[in-house]
Every structure is written in C-alpha cells, then in structure tokens.
C-alpha cells in the first residue's frame, strides 16, 4: 500500500479548505432557496482526496474511455461536487454563482454535463451504485482499466435498490468499484436510529461479500489508505464515520442544517472559523 507523503497530505488538506470555502459561497448565493449544507460538508475530505489525488480524471482526459468515473449517488451533496470540479478546472468560479438560479447548469442535484465533468444526473436516491456496476463491468470487458468511485449516504441505504446493487457488485467480483458510505448518522428528518436504523452496517456489508473498511471519514490518511489496499475479486466499501455539517460550530451534528439558508452574518462567522480550521 502506497501511503501519502507529507506534501500530498498538505495538498489535500488545502484542497479541502478551498472546498469548504466554495460551499459557503454557494450556500450564500443560493440565498432563500437554501441548500443541502450539512451533507455536503460531511464528504469534503472524501471528495478532496478523490479529486485532488486519487482519481485519474482531469480536463485533458475527460473524453477518454480510460478515465476514472465518479458518481455522487447522494446527489443532494452536490455543493461539494461542484466545488471540487471548480478546483480541478472544469467549472469556472463565476459559474458557481449560478447555483440553483434560473437556467443554471448547476442545479440542486447534479445534471449530467460532460463539459463540466458531471458524468451522471443524480438526486433520486439509490441509483448511483447500479450505474457504477455497469461501468465497472464495461471497464473489465473492454480492458479500459478504470476505477469507479461512488459516494452514498447512510440515509440513502434505506433504499432497497442499494441492496440490489450490493448483492450484484460482489457477485460480479468488481474489484474496480469503490463506494463510500457517508456515515454521518443523520437523514432528512432525524437520526438514522430514529428514522430507520442501519444496525451493524459493517456486518451487513461483509455478509454481502464486500471488502469492508471502517474509517474516520475526515482523516485524509485513512481515506487514502482505504482506497489503496488493492483487494482482488471483491468490491470495496468504505464506511466513513463523518460529522454532518463538519467544519463549523453552528452546523456540526445539527440536523437543522440538512437543507438550510445561510445568512450573511452566519457566513461571516463561518469564514472566521474556516481560517482556524485544522
């Protein structure tokens, strides 16, 4: 396993900081129409590690069949996705200001747009994994050797279609498939335990035949290590224990920030906190 060196770690940390800044800006631009703030902040370190370090995806290879694919199955967390695509040059900074505005390319759930690097339309929960399975089968059949990285929500795992995909991915031995389950323990109207408890998620995934790893989803070293175990003949599921609303004192573990309006004064407060974020 190839571990991150200090320079790589610093690079990803800085990338994460920029993602959080973009998220704040877009949440402010969204204004009264509000945005899915909490669930975007919980995946910042995961998405930063993928886009700034792990994935073979850049502006030069965006039409090549061999590029890695990313699927944001929990499409509502698109603030983090758009921010990452901006940082790697697919989306211009000015375009982020159009978030959820009339005729924007950047709606509240991703709309497929190759030019902007958005591979698939997502937003209806429980569909991303199946798309990933199709891609992984193709990658192997055509010997294009790309990997597929997908982020699911823990609430999303309520959907039965997720478990159809879980069964199939291990049946087809898709070792080029990596899923993160963003285990922030909340869904729209309450905690997982209140709404629909997942019980022992790790045991479930192991019993479904996945290479299953549980990590701190905000620890960049742990994220990177989990992605580079090179386990053969099994898909890899990474249960990322995260904090919904991570990074800001007002939003951490506060489910009122699932979908909320960011006021100018809260934005200013958040900027100060971001300065000091480690």
């Amino acid at each position, binding site marked *: 396993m190839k571990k991150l060196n200090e320079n790589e770690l610093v690079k990803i940390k800085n990338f994460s900081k920029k993602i959080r800044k973009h998220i704040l800006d877009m949440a402010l631009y969204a204004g009264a129409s509000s945005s899915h703030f909490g669930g975007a902040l919980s995946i910042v370190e995961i998405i930063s590690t993928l886009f700034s370090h792990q994935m073979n995806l850049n502006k030069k290879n965006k039409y090549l069949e061999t590029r890695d694919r990313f699927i944001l199955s929990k499409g509502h967390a698109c603030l983090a996705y758009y921010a990452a695509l901006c940082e790697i040059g697919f989306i211009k900074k000015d375009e982020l200001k159009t978030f959820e505005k009339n005729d924007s390319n950047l709606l509240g759930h991703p709309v*497929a747009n190759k030019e902007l690097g958005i591979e698939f339309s997502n937003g209806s929960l429980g569909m991303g994994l199946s798309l990933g*399975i199709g*891609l992984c089968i*193709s990658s192997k059949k055509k010997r294009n050797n790309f990997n597929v990285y997908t982020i699911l929500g823990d609430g999303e795992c309520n959907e039965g279609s997720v478990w159809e*995909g879980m069964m199939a991915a291990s049946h087809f031995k898709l070792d080029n498939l990596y899923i993160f389950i963003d285990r922030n323990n909340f869904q729209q109207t309450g905690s997982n335990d209140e709404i629909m408890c997942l019980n022992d998620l790790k045991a479930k995934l192991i019993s479904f035949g996945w290479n299953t790893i549980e990590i701190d989803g905000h620890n960049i070293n742990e994220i990177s290590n989990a992605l580079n175990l090179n386990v053969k003949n099994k898909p890899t599921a990474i249960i990322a224990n995260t904090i919904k609303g991570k990074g800001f004192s007002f939003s951490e573990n506060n489910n009122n920030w699932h979908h909320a309006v960011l006021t100018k004064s809260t934005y200013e407060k958040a900027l100060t906190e971001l300065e000091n974020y480690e």
Partner: protein
Amino acid sequence: MSELINFDEKSIKTWSLIGSRATFGMVSLDLAKNVKDLMILTCDVSTSAGLDRFRKSFPEKYLDVGIAEQNLIGIAAGLSSTGYNVFTTTFAPFQTMRCCEQIKVNLGYMKKKINMVGLASGLVLGNLGYTHCCIEDISVIRSIPNIAILSPADCTETVKAIEASLSYKSSVYIRLTGSQNNPIVYKNDYNYEIGKLIELKSGKDITIFSTGTMVYESLEAEKILKSQGISCSVIDVHTIKPIDSVAIVELSKKSKLFVSVEEHSIVGGLGSAIAEVNSSVNSSPEHLIIGVPDKYEISGDYGYVKEMYGLSSKLIAKKIFDKYKTL
C-alpha cells in the same frame, strides 16, 4: 429493407409458430454475430425470453442480474454510457413499472440509450392473474420524455422492431404481445420505420387504428364490416410514441369515425395517443376507444379473457357496427 436479418418465408413462419418471446431469443443469435458491443441483460428469465441458446453460445454478451429490475436498468445505463448496445428483457410489468423511476432518470432525463423488451405484455398470462398481465405499460412509459414505444403487430414486426431499435436515437421500449402460433400479419419483408404508421387496408368510412395483436383482429373485423357494407381502413400503429401525428391528421379528414383497438387499458394507451392528436383537429371525427376496461376483473386463459373484454374480431366488428349506426 433488412440488413442484419433474413426475412424469408420460412423464418416468418417459424417466428409465428414459436411466438414473439422465443422470436426475440432466436433473433438475438443473429444480433450477436452482427452487432458490435452487444449486451443482453435479463432478470432470471433467460428461458422465458428464449435466451437459453444465446446464454450458452455468447456468455460474454449475456448478463443475468438476478430478480432485481431497478438494478437492471442502472447497470444497463452504465454499460450504455461506455458504448455498449444494450437490450434488457424481463416480463412487461417488471420491465416497466418495478423500475419506472430508474427508467425516468437514466433513460428519460439522462438520455442513456438502451432497448427494453417487455415480455408477455397484455393479457396472455391471464391465468396467472394481474401481477403478470400488463395493461398499463404503454400508459406509464408514454409519460416519460425521450423513450420510444414500439408495439409490433406480429412476430415479423417484432424482428423489425428489434432491428430498428438498435439504430434509433433514444431508448426504446418494445412491447411484446400474443402467444405461440401468433397470427401472421406480414407474410413478406416490408419497409418499417419507427414513427411511421402503416395503412394495411384502405377504406372510406371508418379508420381503425390498432396495435400489437389487435392488428390481426382488426383486419378480420374489417372483413366482417365490409360484408355489412361498411368500408374501413386498418392501420398498424406499430409506434405508439412518437405517434405519427401527421398521418393521423390526414386520416381524420377522410374518416366519419375513428376507432382504436388495443390489448391495453383504455387509459393512456393507443386510444389516448390518437385522441391527443385528434382533439386538435377542426371538426374531428368521433373516436371509439376499444381496449381493456379500467379495472382488474376477468381472469382465465388468453382466449377467454380477450373474448370477455370484447377483443375478438367478431366483438370488435359488432362494437364498431353499433357505434357507426348512431352517427
């Protein structure tokens, strides 16, 4: 005319004998040899889809995803996005309604192109009950943009639809109706184009639009009505979406009565598609919609259920005759 498949007399007779489902399986063997990057996906129904030979002969082009239709559509869309020509197949209710939202998002909204084959649609599985009969699929799929709906009149047209779907620009749903010994409408090769209806009989009083198995029944009904002095056109509407609105508007100008006949609910199917066009025509003809009533009622073997719903040629002719007399 056809490029991939040979439409000789012997093949046409064989297809009719084995029925539309087995015809799909038989034709898939030709596709495997001629179509680049072909993948056929099923949900544990290879035998029902006539795919057992295909499964053995071309295992690398075949994928069984188990009894999981939502996953079926997602995997198919993923494969399609990397250039595969994908067919999915399972029984019509599960092919359309179980995974309806996956169809909407992946094929309609995201425009990934696949070809879906709905097996044993309509009433052919009448003795298995309404979990397996499918009288809703046209209606459900018709409301989703960017998906064509094909409803072949016989097994020859089933082959035409499969062939044409490959090069069609959007996703396609092919609705298979009928059983073995399926009556032949098309005895020879002919020109088939998605979106262009076919006038099989030309008459001056009434236009009968029909689709699927009801095309043959309507041709038989036309003979009965002719003997009663009523002259009918019979139209094969093999493409229900996009509907051939130009041709329908033209036909409305020369008809005293429109009739539509389908092995599908009277809600949202062929009748509705025709009515949506006809309603915009000045002094349009009255329209009699013949199909399965909006209820789950009659069960039993195929012939019995069709007869009880008035979908045999004699009962179709009688309904048309009675309506025509009131004009």
